[in-house]
């Protein structure tokens, strides 16, 4: 894997090229994910894009917390009341039809919003079923997602990224490099006119698909987007046919940034396919498939792989070479937890019909909004009921129970921390006191975070639930203080119990965190027999279950010296490992915070 990485054009050249290609076919290429802090380079690029887009093409900025009514469209209340008939209002997506939507701070975009935008991108239209209005509006748009994330996991939602052809990163571009390019708006416009007649050979499609696969790109949208970008590139070069050079551009701009593995060096050897067909079979199939094709194609695929590599960030290359980069699926599934995190904040996310008496908060403005169109009808009714005259004490605005709108909050997913304390003889003698101390410390943290806590202790032959999930930390402390020690160490039973409890917590829609305090020296097997080898085996298999369920966990090693057993247990569990001898109050608290901050850590091997 030491083949030299070919030099590609400078990042700014590529950024300019992407802007031009995107402007040629905004809806087809999906859009641009632009990772960059605010700054002059980004501003220049955006100005350039505006120049390249067709004259008069709408460009709408989308605030990430926009309401559904504004995003998708709905009832225009003011116009409705004025006109005396329902007047629909277009949302930002439909307003941008034929143009571009710019999403600022896209790294904070919620999954729900990403799904709505993604749906509009896929269908080229938006369906609105809101406020008594049913609409279908064209939304042939491209999206520019301005990603100002700093950390690795601060990225726009994968559902959105998957649909945007270009992923650019401006962090390495200096201002003096961002010079005015030679491509002008006129050239772009000419290319746009030509796009419809650009033909692409099947061999280009095959090569792009092959290159995408060689780079470990799972999503089939990638080669589709790459093909469209290749077409746009041909149009930009005033060609009617997609050539190898265009495919190279597409590979560099579209496939490169999505790579999850390094392509195998020639002779081409399929990297392990992600799906069941075993490697040999996949290879045979492919060879058979390759035979009748002209030999040039294999070459093209290699050229594309090389081109894509040029666009891969240096860090990624190093990481991939170390074999540290997981396959796309593992990576993305690790995200599940992180995404859930975004629901932690309790932010109002709209309203729904509901009765404020049941404890929900009435949203007065929304309620009045809902009531407004019906006033005429209601007054009319009231007048009829009163015998044709308007009752003197009739309310100015008649609000009925049906109108009540209550606030909806994005539910804060509550965290339940499950403490699993080893109270066996081996741990009890000298460490139980310290373990209790550690738990007390952690409880204080839980109190700050308003977590719920549960307490499991294990000794003798079984694990015992001392305290079911509760908000009462006082009770937790009390039951901890009275915890006796002594007996065997049934680690497997304890982990099974923790697993069952964590699962129950999960099903309530809360996030479980398991914190285990043990020396890891299991000596009681699952069936209650004292049999050390079997006990250890059982403990490891129970640990694997926790890992498979992706439960965030932390293992605090309570033995006097860090134990290999406990470390192994933590590794099998996918838990963070923390030896207690080194764990003072601050370290412990930090470790728990770190664990809770990135629940997806549960998947990663312990470090």
């Amino acid at each position, binding site marked *: 894997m030491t083949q030299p990485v070919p030099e590609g054009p400078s990042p700014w050249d590529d950024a300019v090229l992407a802007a031009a290609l995107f402007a040629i076919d905004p809806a087809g290429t999906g859009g641009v994910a632009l990772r960059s802090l605010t700054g002059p380079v980004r501003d220049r690029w955006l100005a350039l894009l505006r120049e390249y887009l067709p004259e008069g093409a709408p460009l709408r900025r989308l605030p990430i917390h926009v309401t559904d009514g504004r995003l998708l469209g709905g009832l225009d209340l003011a116009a409705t009341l004025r006109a005396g008939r329902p007047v629909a209002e277009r949302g930002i997506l439909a307003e941008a039809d034929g143009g571009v939507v710019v999403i600022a701070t896209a790294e904070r975009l919620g999954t729900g919003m990403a799904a709505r935008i993604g749906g509009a991108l896929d269908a080229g239209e938006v369906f609105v*079923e809101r406020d008594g209005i049913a609409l279908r509006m064209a939304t042939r748009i491209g999206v520019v997602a301005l990603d100002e994330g700093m950390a690795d996991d601060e990225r726009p939602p994968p559902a959105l990224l998957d649909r945007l052809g270009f992923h650019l990163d401006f962090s390495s571009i200096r201002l003096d490099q961002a010079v005015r390019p030679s491509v002008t708006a006129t050239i772009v416009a000419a290319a746009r006119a030509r796009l419809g007649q650009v033909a692409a050979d099947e061999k280009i*499609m095959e090569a792009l698909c092959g290159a995408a696969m060689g780079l470990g790109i799972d999503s089939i949208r990638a080669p589709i987007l790459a093909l469209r970008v290749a077409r746009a590139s041909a149009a930009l070069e005033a060609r009617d046919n997609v050539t190898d050079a265009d495919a190279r551009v597409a590979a560099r701009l579209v496939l490169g940034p999505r790579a999850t593995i390094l392509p195998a060096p020639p002779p081409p050897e399929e990297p392990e396919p992600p799906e069941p067909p075993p490697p040999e079979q996949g290879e045979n199939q492919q060879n058979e498939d390759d035979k009748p094709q002209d030999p040039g194609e294999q070459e093209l695929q290699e050229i594309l792989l090389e081109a894509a590599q040029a666009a891969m960030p240096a860090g990624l290359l190093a990481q991939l070479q170390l074999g540290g980069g997981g396959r796309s699926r593992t990576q993305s599934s690790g995200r599940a937890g992180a995404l859930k995190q975004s629901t932690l904040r309790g932010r109002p996310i709209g309203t729904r019909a509901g009765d404020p008496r049941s404890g929900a908060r009435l949203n007065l403005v929304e309620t009045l909004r809902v009531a407004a169109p019906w006033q005429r009808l209601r007054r009319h009714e009231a007048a009829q009921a009163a015998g044709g005259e308007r009752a003197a004490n009739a309310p100015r605005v008649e609000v009925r129970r049906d109108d009540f709108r209550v606030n909806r909050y994005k539910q804060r997913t509550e965290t339940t921390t499950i403490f699993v304390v080893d109270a066996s003889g081996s741990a009890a003698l000298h460490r139980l006191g310290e373990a209790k101390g550690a738990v007390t410390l952690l409880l204080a943290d839980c109190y700050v975070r308003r977590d719920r806590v549960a307490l499991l202790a294990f000794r003798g032959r079984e694990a015992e639930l001392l305290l079911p999930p509760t908000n009462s930390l006082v009770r937790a402390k009390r039951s901890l203080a009275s915890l006796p020690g002594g007996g065997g160490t049934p680690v497997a039973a304890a982990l099974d119990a923790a697993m069952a409890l964590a699962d129950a917590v999960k099903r309530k829609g809360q996030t479980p965190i398991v914190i285990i305090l043990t020396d890891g020296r299991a000596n009681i097997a699952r069936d209650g027999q004292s049999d050390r080898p079997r006990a250890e085996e059982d403990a490891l298999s129970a640990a694997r*279950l926790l890992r498979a369920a992706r439960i965030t966990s932390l293992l605090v090693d309570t033995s006097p010296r860090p134990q290999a057993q406990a470390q192994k247990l933590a590794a099998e569990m996918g838990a963070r490992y923390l030896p207690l001898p080194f764990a003072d109050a601050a370290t412990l608290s930090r470790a728990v915070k770190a664990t809770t901050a990135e629940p997806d850590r549960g998947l990663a091997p312990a470090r």
Partner: protein
Amino acid sequence: MSVSFPFSAIVGQEEMKLAILVAAVDPSVGGVLAFGDRGTGKSTTVRALAALLPKMKAVVGCRYGCDPAAERGLCDDCRQRLAAGPLKSHSVPVPVVDLPLGATEDRVVGALDLERALADGVKAFEPGLLARAHRGFLYIDEVNLLEDHLVDLLLDVAASGENVVEREGLSVRHPARFVLIGSGNPEEGELRPQLLDRFGLSVEVRTPGDLPTRIEVVKRRDAYERDPDAFVAKWKKEDDRLRRRIVAGRGRIAEVEVPDAALERAAKLCMALGTDGLRGELTLVRAARAVAALEGDHAVGDAHLRRVAAPALRHRLRRNPLDEAVATTRVDRAVQELFGA
């Protein structure tokens, strides 16, 4: 886009296509959930369904598209019509209704007609999406992101087959029997267990892993985008053939025998897997019967059970900490143990 991608042109994804065909032949199977990777054509497949389904008979002038042949399921309007004389019917397409994210409750269940309230000061009921989906399919893309209060509402209607609206002193109830089709990506949020149970079949959708299939996907997509009409015309024959199979399957399903041996097999499989309740068993048998009807077979056999075992059962295994992929292997293993390799 004006014409939707033809159903028969969808590459691979056999399990999802089969599940949808099964639901088309026998709606009582109870809905299809397609969960899986991004960009695998989940929505495309469902939207293609509308063009594939044979037309159905409906009462002329009925807002809910009542079935003239099913007297018991008629809406109140049609009952009155029936009292006045025989029902007139016409052929209409089977509805495949999209429930978009961001839909508000009033549009889902139906509400007062705003236009008439404003213009004429009259109270009139305007049916919502549930009414439109009656006797057809209700499709929810990203079903796992649907607002909870809408989910509750859907569950209620799906269970009772009837939609009840009380608003502004207006009280309307109308039949709303539909096949729920949901799709989504599990990475973006899990589905509530209550909603999961409601789906008869649950299919896993994966990105095709082999190169030739992937190339074919890209080629067809490209051909479709370049010239949708020509592409649809090219696949019309295949779609027609499939449509005839659905029609034939529907005609045949009542005659398909379910021998005791097959029932026993299904029961044993469910027992081996420890699925909760009888629903799994029932769905398994029904789905297998629909497969037999589609294939033109006269009795349900192991081959049919095998093909639908995973979609009918994988979401009904007792909650296991292991993820879905493992659930599938568990079903496969049980099938193999019971039916032989």
